């Protein structure tokens, strides 16, 4: 098994190569969340073996009566734990994590990202590692509250981990879901928020500031772990601690989505970090830095 820090590195590398290949990608999301995802996969989650094919098959169709379609969940294994990525724009980071943790063939990143294949840029529930179709943001948490309650009723072991982005805290539905999770005293649901401070239009503080997120979460009754989202030890400790909580735990992981490649910081400052279509100069920098990462 690859070391956690190496998994994080691989997530950045695979996503960077994808971004070069496709001349566009969600690179900053992967760069910000690399340590969170690698820790979850390597040190926290009890996912079980992947039941999805190592080389994914092609897209067989949208779900219909009698034909549920491919389930991206199968690459996450049979549990008992489940990891649900809410912001579907992190799909490439997830695909990269699946490759780095031996759940999917590296060649799939190339072969299966073409038209008619499963590795879509904004993932949906047929995409490997994606559980719900939550590209319209702030819906996955509600689904997970439902699954967590259902699993409680069925006496199923394990935890449902939901990965949220801080931008989703701008949506009212997120708070409705937190309100319910708290009222239900759910202890089998754990939340990690990638607090990267960015959204499509730029830095959140300029677009729509969230203010004191940790205070807001605490006011909703959450146990909040305010941590450095690039520090493997801090992430690991917070996750382990959250697993012991009886109440609703939220790990607020402060991240720098420009981590790994130098030109990303300029993009952060220029409010152009959400989606990266590389300029020729950026492509050169990225290629050079990728070689030594």
């Amino acid at each position, binding site marked *: 098994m690859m070391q956690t820090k190496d998994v994080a590195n691989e997530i950045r590398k695979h996503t960077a190569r994808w971004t070069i290949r496709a001349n566009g990608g969600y690179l900053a999301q992967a760069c910000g969340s690399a340590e969170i995802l690698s820790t979850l996969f390597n040190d926290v989650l009890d996912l079980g073996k992947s039941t999805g094919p190592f080389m994914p098959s092609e897209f067989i169709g949208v779900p219909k009566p009698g034909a549920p379609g491919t389930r991206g969940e199968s690459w996450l294994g049979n549990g008992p734990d489940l990891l649900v990525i809410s912001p579907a724009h992190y799909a490439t980071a997830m695909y990269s994590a699946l490759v780095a943790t031996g759940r999917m063939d590296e060649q799939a990143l190339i072969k299966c990202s073409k038209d008619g294949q499963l590795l879509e840029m904004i993932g949906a529930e047929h995409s490997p590692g994606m559980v719900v179709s939550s590209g319209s943001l702030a819906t996955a948490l509600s689904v997970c509250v439902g699954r967590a*309650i259902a699993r409680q009723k069925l006496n199923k072991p394990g935890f449902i981990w939901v990965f949220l982005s801080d931008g989703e805290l701008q949506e009212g*539905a997120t708070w409705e879901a937190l309100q319910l999770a708290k009222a239900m005293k759910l202890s089998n649901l754990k939340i990690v928020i990638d607090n990267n401070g960015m959204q499509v239009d730029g830095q959140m503080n300029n677009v729509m500031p969230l203010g004191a997120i940790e205070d807001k979460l605490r006011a909703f009754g959450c146990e909040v772990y305010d941590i450095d989202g690039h520090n493997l030890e801090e992430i690991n400790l917070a996750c382990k601690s959250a697993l012991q909580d009886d109440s609703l735990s939220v790990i607020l992981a402060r991240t720098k989505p420009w981590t790994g490649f130098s030109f990303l910081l300029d993009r952060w400052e220029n409010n152009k970090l959400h989606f990266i279509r590389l300029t020729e100069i950026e492509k050169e920098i990225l290629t050079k830095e990728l070689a030594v990462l």
Partner: protein
Amino acid sequence: MGYEIVNRPHVENFINWSKDKPKVLVVTADLTNSCEVGKWRDIYPERYISMGMAEQNMVSFAAGLAREGFEPWLHTFAVFLYRRPFDQLHLSVAYPNLPVRFVGFLPGITTPGGVTHQAIDDINALRGVPNMTILETGDATEVESVLDVAHKIDGPVYIRMLRGEVSRIFPKAEAMQFNQARVLSNGFDVTVISSGISTEEALRAIPALQEHGVSVQHLHISTLKPFDDPQVIESLKSAKHGIISMENHSVIGGLGSAVADLMAEHGIGKKLIKIGLKDTYAHGASQKYLLQKYGLGARSLIEATEKLMDKDLKISEEELSQTRVIDVHSTAKAEAL
């Protein structure tokens, strides 16, 4: 005309029906008694989940329950089930084709609650949702038997549900059948296709039309999507003067539009008059007043027939069968609007 009036048919029927179905859950958004599941909650407290006023969360939450093998029956007013949480309804429930049952009470102008409470475009909105099945109840028998129909469907179902004092128009033994119209009368001059409470209105007018020599083919619809029952297609073909649709909904996108689609697809080149809300909102008042004011009642069917046949039938108000009048504040609607 004296139909048996059944008081709150959903209450006991749903309790009995749920008895041997442990995966059936009830989820509500602060309208539990108003949607006739207060007693259900008391009998099956472990299967009842209260959301508070949070419909967006409720819909995605229900998707989560369904993904783990449960069959959630969402109970709230129709208008709150599809408007605010439309995105969640599409992506959390309809896309994955999950067995979530949306039980929408007080469809159309059956509520005196006014514009905010009147679901006048729900069929229009939901016909465009892939994987969604749409059912509508027209009497107590259908309120009772719609449960089995919905339960058997592999995928999400939206139900326009009646509550309170509900007429029993169809014999109790004649349960609602999926995608199968009820043929209420046979004739060749005009074909009337009605659904929900509009069927009772149509039944007030049709005997008078027949008295005046009009031969009427009348079909009652309870499955609005899919909409391809061969009986409907045949009835559309056989109408000599034209077709009249009649619904408690906007004339855009509902039953009338579904009929128009079918006519076009089958090359049935006849006139169609759509009785319904004519691209307008309504306001808060009694059902009887609203039926009359917005032209949704029995009289509108007479007028539409006259227009299709180009004939003044001279049918007086007295000839229309008596409608029952439900007081806005009757005991059966003692709960909140």
